């Protein structure tokens, strides 16, 4: 009897000890926000990333492990703009965590802090899997990262007010380094201006907008639909008239279609890490941009 009581007490103690010891438990929907939360939170934040760079953020399931992580989160950092519409609502309604509900400080949507591109004038699924709020893949413009970083640091300081100064100091430090990096990237990326590329999914629009690259086609016939042979053939003949330098895909996109087009149009197929962890070299936000530029520059000549 006493033994079983002891066991139960031990179990209860173990349960109580489960929420990570760090002050702020962050659940990031995508690796880029996980990396940003780590930059700003340092060792005061314990960051868990719900998805990896090889997963399509549109198609994630509300896995049991994610519900468990959402249960313990003080702050959920997501893209928003309907990117996580197929799974995040379940994490919110099934985790029993009032802190991360929409409208609460513990729910942070990065896309609300930037100006979105490609906001559709008309919302109809006949156009494919479009997002009424605009293109949600906002993180490949360094200026967007900057805006989100400012807002996220404020949010972290708001939730964990005892460490507010710490988050703000880290944000300041990050932004200084980030600004310097932008100057370097813009200098290095100058040759990419005007470069015509074919993308797999419309997930590089902010990168194109920043670097001045020209998107001349997409492998997906409509956003979210897998590439079809007839669409690829059309694209190939269009490239005859308006050639592209490369066909570019994100690490999580299936390489088949890009390779098909690359072989026939005789242009290189480029895999971009897309987010942190998408390539061996993209270990954080800085190296993500470094590697992205290096891969594009390698085919720009």
């Amino acid at each position, binding site marked *: 009897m006493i033994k079983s009581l002891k066991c139960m007490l031990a179990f209860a103690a173990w349960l109580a000890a489960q929420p990570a010891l760090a002050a702020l438990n962050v659940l990031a929907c995508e690796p880029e926000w996980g990396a940003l939360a780590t930059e700003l939170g340092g060792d005061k934040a314990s960051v868990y990333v719900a998805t990896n760079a090889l997963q399509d953020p549109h198609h994630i399931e509300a896995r049991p492990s994610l519900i468990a992580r959402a*249960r313990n989160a003080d702050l959920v950092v997501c893209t928003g703009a309907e990117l996580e519409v197929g799974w995040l609502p379940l994490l919110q309604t099934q985790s029993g965590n009032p802190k991360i509900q929409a409208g609460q400080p513990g729910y942070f949507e990065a896309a*609300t802090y930037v100006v979105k591109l490609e906001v559709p004038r008309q919302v109809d699924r006949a156009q494919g899997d479009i997002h009424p709020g605009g293109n949600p893949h906002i993180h490949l413009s360094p200026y967007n990262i900057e805006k989100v970083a400012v807002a996220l640091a404020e949010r972290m300081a708001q939730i964990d007010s005892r460490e507010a100064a710490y988050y703000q100091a880290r944000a300041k430090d990050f932004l200084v380094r980030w600004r310097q990096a932008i100057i370097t990237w813009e200098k290095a990326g100058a040759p990419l201006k005007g470069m015509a590329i074919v993308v797999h999914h419309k997930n590089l629009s902010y990168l194109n907008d920043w670097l001045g690259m020209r998107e001349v086609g997409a492998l997906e016939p409509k956003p979210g639909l897998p590439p079809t042979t007839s669409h690829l053939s059309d694209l190939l003949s269009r490239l005859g008239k308006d050639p592209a330098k490369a066909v570019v895909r994100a690490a999580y996109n299936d390489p088949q279609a890009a390779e098909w087009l690359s072989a026939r149009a005789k242009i290189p197929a480029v895999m971009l890490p897309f987010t942190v962890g998408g390539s061996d070299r993209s270990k954080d936000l800085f190296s993500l941009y470094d590697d992205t530029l290096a891969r594009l520059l390698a085919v720009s000549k």
Partner: protein
Amino acid sequence: MFRRNLIAAAIALAITGPAPAQDAELAKIREEIKQMKEGYERRIDALEKRLAEAEAKAGKAERSAASAETAAASASSRPTSEGAFNPAISLVLQGTYARTSQDPNTFQITGFLPSGGEVGPPKRSFGLGETELAIAANIDPYFRGVAIAALAPEGGAEVEEAYFQTLALPAGFMIKGGRFFSGIGYQNEQHQHTWDFQDAPLAYKAFLGGQLKHDGVQLKWVAPTNLLLELGAELSAGDRFPGSDRNKNGVGGSSLFGHLGGDVGSSYAWRSGISYLKVSPQNRGYEDLDSLGAPVTNSFTGSSRLWVADAVLKWAPNGNSTVTHFKLQGEYFRRKESGQLTYDDTAGSNLFGGPVSASFDGRQSGWYLQGVYQFMPRWRAGYRHDRLNFGTVSNGIVQSGLGPVAADFPVLTPHSPKRDTLMLDWSPTEFSRLRLQFASDQSRLGLTDNQFFVQYLYSLGAHGAHKF
């Protein structure tokens, strides 16, 4: 804008200056105004430069929360009309083309007390399935509301689910109330249009009448662990199979469930569970035929307990399910029913001068195992094996020689049904699906029903989030 206004103001000032003044004086004033203007311009330039700098720096960390909010407001493009509060509305369209070697109207799961629900195969030829209309939204910061109506093909609507759910309870607790699918088992909580086969596993048909919904309340708790541990308890009216309407105060049914789930690496995710359901049906009736072929009404009163063990394992390379993925799912059911069975042939043969009652005790079980594999984008193939074990059934009416013999209970003829099902489906997008299904169903004693279905499923409107 600001700058232009200032210049305009300066010019206006210049024009409305004292007219009768001397030329020299005028020149002096003009000079002063010019200086003022230049001064303003310098200050405005400086201001603009600072503004530009501030903007380029995208607001330093010390920028106030208020200005961040303003920026957020201007960056977001949320609709501001009254309609912005409209709930998420979605509609599921479905239908079948069915070809069966046996008459679907004669469907029965021999050996198992019938549920009285619609568990048979869809009607032959073209048939419309249930059209599902779902409306959901957060009610306020504390509650969320969901209503799902099923529009029946023959007309009429049924409330499939209509419940509120708490959003703001602390410590991982959630309460759901209204009508909802019970949390027992794995597939029970999933909506029919998200099932991987056209129909429910035989065990669901036999033990839960296809799918169990409660009118009641559910309390669920998620443990603060990194491995998912959730525990739930439900209290309900218990008025649906395996329960029955009792017209009694108090709780008619209760259930408990626990789930454990997590990941193995980035490619595997799993969940397993144990559930228990107890209901106390009163005069749960079913129609049968006696040995002369005349109609009989039987009814059961007593207690019905059901245990369910379930497990699901999903695989996708690196967790990316777009190209290939696999799902393995299985559940085991065990039911114990004990009470009184009443045999009433007064409307038919009327051989015993009234209804006959005696004790009834049944211990029966069943299971299914299914695997669904997406072998290329859009295409999935699946196989399911179903089995029910008759187990032990002791029918006091027959055993104590009250009159009716075993042949007067054809539904309870010892039989262990089984079924094999193959499925192939094609989903152009996540909103549309076409499915072919072939099943060899031995639910009926001594008969094999070869079933062929073509099914379409379309969902339109708000993008729903599907359970794991």
